[in-house]
């Protein structure tokens, strides 16, 4: 999808397999082993073998090289391997990379994976004080000396402005997002918060982390792995699972974009990079917000879910809190990263696939068109995944 014109990628590739490890607080094994386990599980789900794979895609932040995962899984020659940058912003773009490779004939079967011990190993919120200076370090150097040190605090700076602009309280604005995620997670045996729904009062009573964000506005730091298998739609039709067709895929970065600290642009009430993704996805798929059956919107912190709904045009600016509170769109039906697991958005892609297969624990009857987004506050990506035949190619 170009920023300017419609592309020819839509309808050419499909996700045919999904596989994950358990999501835990301490996996007890290496990140490479988690990656390999999730890749094998995704291939088994697809009814394919490692020998069928000729492409791998992951995140630049992933510590398991493609060639090492290939060795650990018994794959042979690879004709395609690629990585996408910007943390969780890579999630949907890994599928886009795979779809590009498949559509161009560069590879036949591509597996996208992400695996980490984010909770028991190096935690993202444990400070970046010892980070090696780099070009990215320079950008962070504008905030760290003042004690603005964590992902939660970077999101909070924009969230504060959102509340101010629309005259909202943290409880009324962010509470519904947290409650919705936890309601879905409560029904999901794979979720960290299985069986543990929360109320708006629980949210409001949880302790401050980086005001205006509370504990229950923050995702679940997780150990685990998630993989997805992508191949051509033609081949997908011969495999065991109903295909989740990549009807549109897009990446986006905004003007004056930074990684998590885009404080110096416009009015800090939205996510311009997600608007870039949204415009491409709507144009590429020919769909509109009203056509979407399920939204899987990246939720490492609650406020950015609201801004995404507004950027995609599900509701007007400032109206997302009411939109979520009224359940006007089935949202993050796996429990999201707030309730299921924080797997850098890859578990959300898998949930969209389950909705299209009809196998979600919170199944939306007849779900045929899903929207999935990747990391927010960073250069990011998104997907429209649909059931085979649900959208004209």
């Amino acid at each position, binding site marked *: 999808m170009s920023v300017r014109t419609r592309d020819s990628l839509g309808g050419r590739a499909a996700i045919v397999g999904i596989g994950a490890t358990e999501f*835990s*607080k*301490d996996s007890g094994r290496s990140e490479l082993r988690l990656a390999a386990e999730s890749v094998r599980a995704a291939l088994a789900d697809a009814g394919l073998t490692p020998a069928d794979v000729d492409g791998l895609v992951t995140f630049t932040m992933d510590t398991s090289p493609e060639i090492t995962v290939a060795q650990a899984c018994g794959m042979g020659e690879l004709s395609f391997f690629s990585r996408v940058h910007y943390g969780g912003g890579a999630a949907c773009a890994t599928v886009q990379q795979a779809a590009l490779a498949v559509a161009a004939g560069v590879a036949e079967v591509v597996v996208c994976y992400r695996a980490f011990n984010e909770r028991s190993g190096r935690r993202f*919120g*444990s*400070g*970046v*004080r010892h980070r090696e*200076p780099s*070009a990215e*370090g*320079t*950008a*962070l*150097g*504008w*905030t*760290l*000396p*003042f*004690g*603005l*040190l*964590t992902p939660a*605090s970077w999101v*909070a*700076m*924009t969230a*504060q*402005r959102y509340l*101010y602009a629309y005259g909202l309280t943290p409880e009324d604005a962010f509470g519904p997002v947290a409650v919705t995620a936890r309601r879905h997670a409560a029904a999901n045996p794979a979720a960290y918060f299985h069986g543990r729904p929360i109320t708006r009062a629980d949210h409001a009573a949880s*302790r*401050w*982390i*980086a*005001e*205006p964000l509370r504990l229950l506005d923050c995702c679940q730091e997780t150990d685990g792995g998630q993989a997805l298998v992508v191949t051509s739609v033609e081949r997908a039709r011969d495999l065991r699972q109903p295909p989740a067709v990549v009807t549109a895929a897009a990446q986006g970065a905004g*003007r*004056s974009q930074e990684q998590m*600290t885009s*404080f*110096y642009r416009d009015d*800090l009430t939205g996510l311009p990079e997600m608007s870039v993704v949204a415009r491409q996805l709507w144009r590429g798929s020919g769909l509109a917000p009203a056509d979407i059956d399920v939204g899987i919107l990246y939720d490492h912190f609650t406020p950015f879910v609201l801004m995404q709904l507004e950027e995609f045009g599900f509701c007007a600016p400032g109206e997302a809190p009411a939109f979520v509170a009224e359940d006007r769109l089935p949202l993050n039906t796996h429990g999201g990263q707030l309730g299921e697991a924080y797997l850098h958005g890859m578990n959300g892609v898998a949930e969209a696939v389950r909705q299209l297969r009809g196998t979600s624990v919170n199944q939306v009857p007849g779900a045929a068109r899903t929207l999935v987004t990747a990391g927010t506050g960073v250069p990011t990506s998104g997907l429209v995944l649909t059931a085979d035949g649900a959208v004209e190619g």
Partner: protein
Amino acid sequence: MDDEFPTRDEDELHTRLKAYEGRAATVAGVGRDPVNAPMIRHWCEAMGDRNPAYTGPDAIAPPTMLQAWIMGGLSGHGGRARAYGELLALLDEAGCTSVVATDCEQEYLRPLRPGDEVTFDTVIESVSGRKTTKLGTGYFVTTRTDIRVGGASAGTHRFRILKYAPAGHDLKDRDQDRNQDGDRNQDGDRNQDRGRQEAARRPRPVVNRDNAGFWEGVRRHRLLVQRCTACATLRFPWLPGCGTCGSAGWDTVEASGEGTVYSYVVMHHPPFPAFSPPYAIGLIELAEGVRIVSNVVDVPYDKVRIGLPVELEFRAYDDDSVLPVFRPRAGEAAA
């Protein structure tokens, strides 16, 4: 040389304390009783907790009871390793003879049910730098206990104590004069003073060839903003080209120092050594129109608000670092 802190003695003590991080405090501890219905019932009655999940044939124990199953009681329990005792003795010797439990953090990985027999291991997770609190000066010691049932993790229990010399009592190597301006205000200064005392330094500015001019200006107490020589657009943060027109040419203008709080965050968690939560960080919109992240000083963290008029001030931190910070403009003190 009065400002040279910490003293060598303090450094040496801290190094010795730090050596205990990661060492076992309890190895293969065993809960004194299996998880059992009577204790659950007493707990729920004491807490007034009527959650039906805690009664009946499928009862689980309230997750917050986690510590109850590993407490040693008056007679203690076996398995305690020597390291923890040594660490406490070291602190006693240094004059930190008082102890207070400060906080506890638990994670619940799976429910405990009557009949479960818990085993646990405790590790000394961290020893803080020297901290001064209202109680006195000392060190925070954090232990983490991993609780298991049948070999599978059931939860973790983090427990933090402050081992301290009561206020008014000297630490063995302590120069009391050091703390004369200890609690001057709510934010920046306190951080600064504590930072010196515990040798925990703020993250340094990250300086490279693209932004060295800014930090050089700060050293000379001038806040410099880049200006595009082609289209005159001001820009911050510093970058080697103009985001509006793409021109590489630039000069600088010195900011007047007047600004307003455009947004802000109050940091509560997690604690970092050089900072004392809660504290406020502002996104300051300068009168010139660009924004900069900085601290809002001389005002309690809970009085910072969007729109607060502020003015620039340069402050030294950690002896060798100057940062531009902002205080309420005269007549705007919000306290």
